[in-house]
């Protein structure tokens, strides 16, 4: 068991370690490890305006995706949990799982068809990119929240709050939302990680001004290996940062609610 775990961990972390090593290597051609040490690749990356801009765009897209997903998923998950009809529940589940089943490529073609017309000329805009990311990531958050609601037995707690005089809004914000803080946190980590690394849809629908980091990263692979490694390490850091930010935002919101109790 320990051997399998070790092999798996080596398999998992070797590319990451090699990326990190490669990003500080002066030269890396036809050898197992790079030669020399340099921080020039990171300086070059920093001086490249298109990467800097893509970095900011990615952060904006992640932040907006997390915020919109939270605003939609929490009430939607609650409505699904409360739905008395089993048929409605099944239908809703199918609809919200569709974006997972359909490849992002299919979704992207749909976006291109609809939003490149004269009536809806939004292809290439930042908001359409965010909307695309919301469609792709929402099912994951929704799924996590609905599962947690079932596990927590919210019905009895809500009945208790209702008997104590709480209105619907009071019950929702005082009981339901804080109770979901853990699943919201883990769900947002997933949303942030998916959004930051999303390439297929972004590559097809993002405009020149709003290309997220993974799309711009593709260019780096045509240049020096060290530069490509440094750019990828930055994406990795960005993903970790975004995931931590998502979790922190969920916890802060919950802590605020609790302190107001």
């Amino acid at each position: 068991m320990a051997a399998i775990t070790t092999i798996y961990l080596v398999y998992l972390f070797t590319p990451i370690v090699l990326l990190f090593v490669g990003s500080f290597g002066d030269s890396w051609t036809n050898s197992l490890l790079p030669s020399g040490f340099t921080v020039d690749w990171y300086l070059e990356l920093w001086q490249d305006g298109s990467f800097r801009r893509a970095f900011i765009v990615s952060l904006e897209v992640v932040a907006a995706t997390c915020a919109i997903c939270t605003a939609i998923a929490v009430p939607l998950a609650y409505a699904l949990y409360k739905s008395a009809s089993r048929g409605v529940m099944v239908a809703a589940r199918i609809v919200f799982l569709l974006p997972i089943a359909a490849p992002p490529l299919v979704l992207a073609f749909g976006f291109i068809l609809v939003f490149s017309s004269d009536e809806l000329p939004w292809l290439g805009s930042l908001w359409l990119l965010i909307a695309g990311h919301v469609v792709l990531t929402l099912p994951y958050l929704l799924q996590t929240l609905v599962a947690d609601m079932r596990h927590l037995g919210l019905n009895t707690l809500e009945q208790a709050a209702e008997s104590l005089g709480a209105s619907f809004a009071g019950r929702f914000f005082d009981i339901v939302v804080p109770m979901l803080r853990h699943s919201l946190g883990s769900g947002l980590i997933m949303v942030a990680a998916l959004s930051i690394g999303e390439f297929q849809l972004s590559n097809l629908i993002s405009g020149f001004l709003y290309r997220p980091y993974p799309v711009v990263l593709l260019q780096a692979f045509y240049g020096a290996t060290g530069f490509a490694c440094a750019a990828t390490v930055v994406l990795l850091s960005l993903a970790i940062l975004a995931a931590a930010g998502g979790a922190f935002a969920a916890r802060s919101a919950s802590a605020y609610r609790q302190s107001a109790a």
Partner: protein
Amino acid sequence: MSIELQNVNFTYPGTDVGVTGIDLTVADGELLAVIGASGSGKTTLLKLIAGFETTNAGHILLNGEDVSRLPVRDRQLGVVFQSYALFPHMTAWQNVAYPLKIRRTAPAERHRLAVEALARVGLKGFEDRRPQSLSGGQQQRIALARALVFQPRALLLDEPLSALDAGLRGEMRDEIRRLQREFNISTVHITHDQEEALSMADRVAVMERGRLVQIASPRELYDAPATRSIAGFVGEANLWDGTVAAPDTVEVAFGRLATAPHGLAMGSPVTVLVRPENIQVGAGQVPVNTFAGTVVRDRFLGAVRRYDLAIEDSVILGETGIRGSIDIVSIRPEDVRLLPA
């Protein structure tokens, strides 16, 4: 504040399960226990009073005001749930203060009142603890404090002791009764534990298949149950099929039993009830109702011993503190109760 139910009817949508023709009154400051087997409708009754379900017909009155159509939050009733239903993301005092927060009590005042309420239920010093770090009994006390802190019109207890172990249950019975008296609050206590109902309640209501079959004081319910099923449900009982043989005698499978004068018609079928603790070991002072048999089952329960004495094909269930051998028992005529067959 009184609670009154007038001809209340309710069935769950798409089923014939519910309650039918419920008429009952809980007087100001009274504790009414509602008992019954699983599915008898006792929890449905509580849901109707609390407002979690709405009656199909009939009225629910709180101090004369019809609240049948009033939303749960406006009924102003303190409800203690079987699972306590404490909010795990709040501390003990925040849980207790929650109804006060809803009523817009100033933060400092609601903290003071919550701390005071916790002290009244014996939880001084536990204000900042989370429910999950406390024992079942302590959680139960928080639930009680929360249900009482906003001075509700009445208190509804939904099997509040069922999740506690036996030792703690006895302690909490006394605690609930003490608080109920202290607050002088009308209380409906749902339980499946007849011992709990008999020991705590001013009156006990028995439900069967969605109907209220008897409401009486604990003593009356135990001594004079209305039906054979109630007699069997409330406490241990000898229940024998019998026939009236004389104005003070019934015939049972193992012989004739002298009774107090009963006024029933000769030949009428009856159910004969004798409580096990009323079975005397040895021959009685008056030479009636004395039976010889063999002990076929003997259970030592500590303070008492419960035994089955076989007489031909019949069995007499008895309870006694005597530890010696038993071969003859007697029953005083006044301890023989006759119920409808």
